[in-house]
């Protein structure tokens, strides 16, 4: 009934949604969507590196994204430029450098569209192993740093004063962001990964009154988006990334009705 590639894509997508759900909540809470974008754009450089030296794509994307995050932290300390300017600088220059490098790699045929917007045909069995073991590892680490990360998201000084070491949690979270981008780039594409992080979480915010609920709804929203998106991608022959994101947008719009209802109830 299904072609083999579709099952693979589905399993990969569901694995990604399980991870982007909780991580996306922190991206929304901590206002990190542009930070996510920057890491994702720099991923192109990681991909070109992988092709040039025949490395694993996820691994080289992870390394380059972590490096960009480190450079960002250093620039924030050393310059007086505002955070969003630095993010824009890094995002677009790393994207540009990546595209220039691709121009030089004439001996390899690139599917640029696939890189930017995701390609369900590209998911191999190896990718599934990377997504599910990598994803499990990311979730495990997130669970370990949950308390300090969440507390410092609410209030940094409270977390610091009561001995939770928020700086360490923040640094680890940055690495987790790089990791989630690395495992989802093939599927969602580097221009749309941030959407996968933010839109289900934003949808969940509309219908939750506690952080735990928001995480759970965000995961459910992500899973639904993957299933709906991939089926329509198969049906209409569209790229997988945009289809998944469009599906999550529909869920977000539906969640707005819930807000309207609860406002009505209050009045």
């Amino acid at each position, binding site marked *: 009934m299904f072609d083999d590639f579709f099952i693979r894509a589905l399993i990969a997508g569901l694995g990604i949604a399980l991870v982007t759900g909780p991580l996306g909540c922190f991206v929304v*809470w901590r206002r990190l969507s542009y930070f996510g974008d920057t890491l994702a754009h720099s991923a192109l450089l990681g991909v070109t590196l992988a092709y040039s030296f025949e490395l694993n794509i996820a691994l080289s994307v992870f390394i380059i994204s972590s490096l960009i995050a480190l450079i960002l932290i250093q620039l924030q300390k050393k310059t007086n430029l505002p955070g969003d300017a630095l993010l824009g600088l890094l995002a677009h220059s790393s994207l540009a450098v990546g595209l220039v490098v691709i121009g030089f790699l004439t001996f390899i045929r690139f599917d640029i569209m696939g890189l930017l917007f995701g390609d369900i045909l590209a998911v191999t069995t190896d990718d599934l192993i990377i997504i599910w073991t990598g994803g499990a590892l990311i979730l495990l680490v997130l669970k370990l740093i949950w*308390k300090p990360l*969440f*507390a410092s998201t609410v*209030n940094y*000084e409270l977390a*610091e004063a*009561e001995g939770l070491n928020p700086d360490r949690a923040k640094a680890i979270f940055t690495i987790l962001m790089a990791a989630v981008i690395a495992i989802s780039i093939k599927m969602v594409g580097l221009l749309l990964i941030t959407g996968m992080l933010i839109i289900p979480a934003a949808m969940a915010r509309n219908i939750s009154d506690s952080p*735990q609920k928001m995480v759970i709804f965000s995961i459910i929203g992500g899973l639904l988006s993957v299933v709906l998106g991939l089926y329509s991608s198969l049906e209409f022959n569209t790229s997988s990334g945009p289809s998944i994101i469009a599906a999550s947008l529909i869920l977000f719009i539906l969640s707005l009705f819930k807000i309207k209802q609860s406002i009505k109830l209050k009045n």
Partner: protein
Amino acid sequence: MSSENSTLVKLNNAGFKQNDKWLVEGVSLTVEKGKIVTLIGPNGSGKSTTAKIALGIYKNIEGSVEKYTNKVGYVPQKISIDWTLPLRVYDFMLLTENIKDEAIDEALTLTGVIHLKNKNLGNLSGGEFQRVLIARAISKKPELLVLDEPVQGVDYTGEIALYELIKRISDTLNCGILLISHDLHTVMTATDHVVCLNGHVCCSGSPMDVAKNNEYKTLFGEQASQILSVYEHKHDHVHSDKGEIKKN
């Protein structure tokens, strides 16, 4: 009992500089178990900064801080919470430590806000939120409580009740309290040690000692000095209408 064992936090000549400007310098003080140390001083005198030095929030400080406990409860003066977070009072109580439900209920009852347990934090009034902050700090049964203007925005009767609660907590939990307050009246009845700040320690000692201090008088005025001494006196003697002292 040696003083070493009962010391919770000790500042040795501590100071903090931001953008080449000293926020506070040369502060030495010790908070011991079961004792209340109060910081007083005008606006911008470095009270909150001193508290943050004691808590270890400020890292690059002059002098040194010795902290002998990790069980700390903190009520900050200013707290900005981002409302992109769906957060109920209940979730907030569990913020830095997993506390049993009974302990949460007990603390919220003590501060008079148990009915708000499942309310969203963003919907509370200033005074209600302040009570939740205090409840959160005491519910984890800390060894050291740092309270920075803990009753701001609380109604007058509530203010007195909360100060009584703070005193009671210091007795029952035998925890040390570092208190910042501008309200000389209410604070002085309970305080063991007063540190008067004005960018540096201008004087310190028992409320009585501080009240007599000339620097304190110039900082706060003669009126304030009388407030302190009245509280110190009131239990062992009364004043006759001519101002002479009558023994009880």
